[in-house]
């Protein structure tokens, strides 16, 4: 994962609240593997009409939107489903940061695990940032170390969980981090097996019926 510290880039004013993960990537596009690229499906059903034509006044269809690295939304961005594909779509489109007053809880974790910064700002600051963009793409600078957003000479503070901040700054992968705690995990399992035998092994009273594997898998 690429570390992220300072980012000065074009920002796209999405300006919508309750943008759930179903909208970020509709379910029907999720059968593909990541390698095929999810950016083309980002907010698909808002970006394109039912005939497949680009909706002219939708922010992601504005000129220069595809060069934006920052997205500005309103409250409850990324609520709903746990689908990490919503983050894949944002990242593959080119975004490295989303600014909003609140984020879905699972979305926040997914974002950080893919190097996308969820920058939480006060509701009034979000409105002020959107006002400064005035419906057009514009330059914003984001400083993760100082937790500050700069636009047209004005600074706004943003919040982020300290662990998420460290992971983004360092580009850390959780699985490697956890490997350092192998001894503690083993000790926990030994103690827990006597404390909660029903939790450590799953009871079975009869053999499981055999599930047949399809011939072509």
């Amino acid at each position: 994962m690429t570390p992220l510290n300072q980012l000065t880039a074009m920002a796209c004013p999405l300006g919508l609240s309750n943008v759930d993960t179903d909208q970020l990537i509709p379910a029907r596009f999720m059968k593909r593997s990541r390698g095929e690229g999810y950016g083309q499906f980002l907010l698909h059903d808002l970006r394109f009409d039912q005939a497949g034509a680009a909706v002219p006044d939708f922010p992601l269809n504005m000129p220069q939107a595809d060069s934006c690295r920052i997205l500005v939304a309103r409250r409850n961005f990324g609520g709903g489903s746990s689908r990490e594909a919503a983050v894949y779509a944002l990242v593959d489109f080119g975004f490295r940061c989303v600014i909003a007053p609140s984020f879905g809880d699972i979305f926040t974790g997914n974002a950080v695990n893919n190097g996308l910064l969820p920058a939480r700002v006060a509701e009034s600051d979000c409105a002020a940032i959107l006002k400064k963009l005035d419906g057009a793409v514009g330059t914003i600078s984001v400083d993760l170390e100082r937790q500050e957003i700069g636009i047209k000479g004005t600074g706004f503070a943003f919040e982020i969980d300290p662990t998420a901040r460290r992971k983004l700054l360092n580009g850390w992968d959780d699985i490697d981090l956890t490997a350092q705690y192998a001894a503690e995990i083993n000790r926990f399992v030994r103690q827990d097996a006597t404390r909660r035998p029903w939790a450590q092994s799953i009871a079975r009273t009869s053999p499981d019926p055999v599930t047949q594997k399809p011939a072509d898998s």
Partner: protein
Amino acid sequence: MTGRTLFDKVWHSHEIVRDEDGQSLLWVDRHFVHEGSFHAFAKLAARQQAVARPDLTIGVADHYVPTRGRNLPIANADIRGVVDRLYANTANHDIRLFGLEDPRQGIVHVLGPEQGFTLPGLLIVCGDSHTSTHGAFGSIAFGIGASEVAHVLATQTIWQRKPKVMRMTINGRPSPGVGAKDIALNWIARLGADGARGYAIEYAGEAVRGLSMEGRLTLCNLSIEGGARCGMVGPDAVTIDYLRDKPHAPRGKVFDAACDAWLALRSDADATFDREVILDAAEIAPTVSWGTSPEDALPVDQSVPDPDDAGDTAHADHMRDALAYMGLRPAQRITDIAIDRVFIGSCTNARLEDLEAAAAVLRGRHARVPGLVSPGSSLVKQQAEARGLDRIFTAAGLDWVGSGCSMCVAMNGDILPAGERCASTTNRNFKGRQGPGGRTHLMSPAMAAAAAVTGYVTDVRELMAGREPA
């Protein structure tokens, strides 16, 4: 010493270490994987990593499985490909799988409790936001993303920051025709779709105690729709009775010892909560969503709101956008909304009790609109058929199909056509959730059945007057 909450007790019994900035490494007792896990297995393969505890990992096919023609090969190659990947991944890593042809197959959040995989005091995760369902047993259960699924597969642990704890007390008894779905939509409408963000919820109070396990599962299922990390109900006699003799629950002396431990899992009398919310069940009416977020919900006897009355511009913008998408006018009575289709199913409302509630309304009546009834599991299907519920649904003109996520996720062939309006027992009325351009009104199974009978959103209490309730 200050008392501890139920959540604190379960959390601390799973905490392996806490790092310098307060993140906890937690032990995972049960990890459910469904077809969407293919991203995580791909990550594991790229790292050439083994699954740490295949014995505590349970594979279930639910999201992509077709609900019709279940004895035939899956016709759609994309869908078959995703299901096949689950078979291959679970086989390669020696993980037990509940596949399409298994008589116990079902939606993961229905199957887990039904098979006794879900027990009190456990920590349960799954790459699905409605994992919060399992909290009904007094376990900590929450949804995770694909990167976290890969982490759990590789380590059987997960990093989490301890959330704050909210107690949501629902006093009194709900009136007839009002159930867990109405209680949940009510609190989400009051607090907002992100109103419980950063919190674990402990549901308490007479109305919660009075719910069956099935009702508690519905209530906890919808916790995520209010932004909560998870929802929990303290174990009691209802919990123990449900678990006795479940296939994978412990037996004999182990069960007795477990029961002692489980019944001790309750918030101490002097425990303090970070936030208290108190509701009165008697004030809750059958509730229906009108917009495109579960927070856009109102009692059935009210009217669609007017964006001009909204407190702030952002909220007014959301309302205008939602009304336009849903094809509704401000001040339109909710009971004047004509529906095109009915869906009864999903991890929220497809257990036996839900189907019985819908059948009690439909018995001897005809549906004015087409509809689909998909039981939450193959076992629920068998039980419903043994009680003759399938014949009530089909006699009313609704389709009775196999179990799976069906028209809740629109990934498996069951889709709400564009522009159609659906009375739905699912959990999400998001734009396009049940199919691109589809319009979803969330409600209880009894309310969905009432809508089927009249062709309009209808107060089920009117149709149940003089009838036996379920």
